């Protein structure tokens, strides 16, 4: 059985089912209990599972992440909600110095199976620091996995996989598409594997790599280009940013000979740079054009009156496609 769910509903269902399925699972965060989370991702769960498993914590990200590490060390599976990605900074120390390194430092003796969920990204006219896209910080940190769903189906399957994963997973939820659309989502528990990209649309002239809210921008640009110029783009949703699905990326570039990466994070040292390096290493001689990237700019995400100009637009993506194919 399946029915149409938004990404937010799919995420809630994944947590709900894992809470039922495994008594070790618990949720921690600011305003996630009685209030159901500022985006309502945890709505109704405190009523169902009680305040010991759906915990309204004090306002302290270092406290939340740090105690989640201890909970995980001692047999629980904490799923942490950070209200907005930028508010993880006070807890950053705990994420990178401890969650990410515990297995390594103890040579596998202790591990930290936990999930850090957080809304991220621009496009909802939020106040300052509510729109950041700094996935690189986490994808730069050995020991973490970084997952970004782009559809309700993937959100549920990936979150279940993340909760079952033996390592800490940073689960980035694109705010802009939380409620933007619904799609068929199976009622039963299912898994979408971490580390595997998805070919959303096959094509022969150019490979476009995107994730999160940018996938839809890439899809629209690809459809327009196909209609206007007849070029066919292969569109790939990376889904996991760390570790990258190397085989999928390289296989596609070998087929099309061209690549374009679209992300809303700042350009410098963004994920695109890493993907370009990977293609360079593995498929240089297949390339017919330099790889281009369409990204957010190297400026702090501006106040919302300019956020649409900060974000990669369909127009910029189309320009990137055109320049790459006509190179």
């Amino acid at each position, binding site marked *: 059985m399946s029915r149409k769910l938004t990404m937010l509903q799919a995420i809630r269902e994944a947590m709900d089912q894992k809470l039922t399925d495994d008594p070790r699972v618990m949720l921690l965060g600011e305003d996630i209990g009685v209030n159901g989370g500022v985006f309502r991702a945890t709505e109704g769960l405190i009523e169902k599972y009680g305040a010991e498993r759906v915990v309204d914590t004090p*306002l302290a990200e270092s406290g939340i992440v740090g105690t989640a590490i201890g909970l995980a060390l001692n047999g629980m599976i904490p799923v942490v909600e950070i209200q907005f990605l930028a508010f993880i900074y006070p807890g950053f120390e705990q994420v990178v110095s401890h969650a990410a390194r515990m297995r390594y430092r103890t040579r596998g003796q202790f591990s930290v199976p936990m999930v850090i969920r957080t809304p991220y990204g621009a496009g909802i006219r939020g106040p300052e620091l509510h729109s950041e896209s700094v996935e690189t910080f986490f994808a730069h940190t050995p020991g973490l996995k970084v997952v970004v769903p782009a559809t309700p189906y993937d959100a549920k399957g990936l979150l279940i996989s993340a909760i079952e994963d033996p390592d800490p997973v940073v689960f980035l939820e694109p705010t802009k598409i939380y409620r933007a659309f619904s799609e068929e989502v199976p009622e039963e528990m299912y898994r979408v594997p971490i580390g595997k990209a998805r070919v959303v649309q096959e094509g022969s002239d150019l490979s476009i790599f995107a994730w999160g809210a940018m996938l839809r921008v890439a899809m629209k640009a690809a459809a327009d280009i196909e209609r206007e110029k007849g070029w066919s783009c292969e569109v790939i949703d990376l889904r996991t940013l760390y570790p990258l699905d190397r085989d999928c990326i390289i296989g596609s570039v070998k087929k099309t000979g061209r690549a374009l990466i679209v992300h809303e994070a700042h350009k410098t040292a963004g994920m695109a740079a890493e993907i370009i390096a990977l293609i360079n290493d593995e498929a240089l001689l297949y390339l017919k054009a330099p790889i281009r990237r369409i990204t957010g*700019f190297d400026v702090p995400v501006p106040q919302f*009156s300019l956020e649409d100009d900060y974000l990669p637009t369909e127009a910029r993506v189309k320009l990137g496609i055109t320049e790459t194919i006509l190179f």
Partner: protein
Amino acid sequence: MTKLYQVLTPEGELAEDISGRITPDLMIDMYKKMVLVRTFDRKCIILQRQGRLGTYAPFEGQEAAQVGSAMALRAGDWMFPTYRDHAAAIVHGHSLVRVFLYWMGHSDASVCPEDKRILPQCVPIATQMLHAMGAAWASKLKGEQTVSIAYLGDGATSEGDFHEALNFAGVFRAPVLFFCQNNGYAISVPFSRQSASRTIAQRAAAYDIHGVRVDGNDVFAVWLTVQDAVQRARVGGGPALIEAVTFRYGAHTTADDPKKYRDQEVLAQEWRRRDPVDRLRRFLEKQGLWNDEQEAAWQRQVGETIESALAEAEAFPKPQPADMFAHVYAEMPWHIREQQQELQRVLNEGGMQA
């Protein structure tokens, strides 16, 4: 320390003699400012509903805390507000226009008047407390008689930065004031669930700094407390943690619904009885310092001031895409200049003539 200091009762009576300490002119000024900021706050909510502002953080109910504390400062003192302290910022010299611009999502909103030291509204919780501490430390090192004040909420007292700031302040005896508006809730979480300490003021003891708990809806008590703390800080008496016990009637922000987590009507009604603005008006009227005529005239003037600030904010030059590239660094590096040009090119070409 855990006692609640109150001077002006909800009935508009004095609980202690303050003659010689607060002049009638000052009292009237306090009242006028509270009316101005309350009207401004209500206007912002209406504008948000009309889509003319983005998400807005209201403060109605906290006027005495913000106005009273800010009025105890001198022009050169440093202010580090949060996203809810527009009233304090306005009293300390920020313009209504810039506050409007901030909630319109404008990039130029956080620029304060040249002769003022008001930092941008701090969005991450508790982080500004350390900046205030550092600025105060510099005042001490430079031998200046200025103080720094950091505003915070009750939720902020859970963050590590709160404790680090208090600890630094205690160790370095800097002229810094931490002014906490304990409005009972950090979004949905009541203070009882935020902390097991009964009061915030008592935390001062752990760092051996001056701590006071004051009725945050009593502008006289707030003003006298902050005034006293400022004066001792100026002459080397060290830092203070002030807990102003208050309540915000409305939602956490315009994106929030308080009915989900508190008995909104009952609570708001209860607190209305202790309202800071009504309380002072009752007192002033009893003293013959204020009457209906003055009220009507002031209301009119406040309305005009706000309308003209709004008109100015809405006529403010629209932010241009190029603006987002400015001021990232003192001197624009090559890559940012190129990105600016790239965007301009795309926009000029109407996006897509390639």
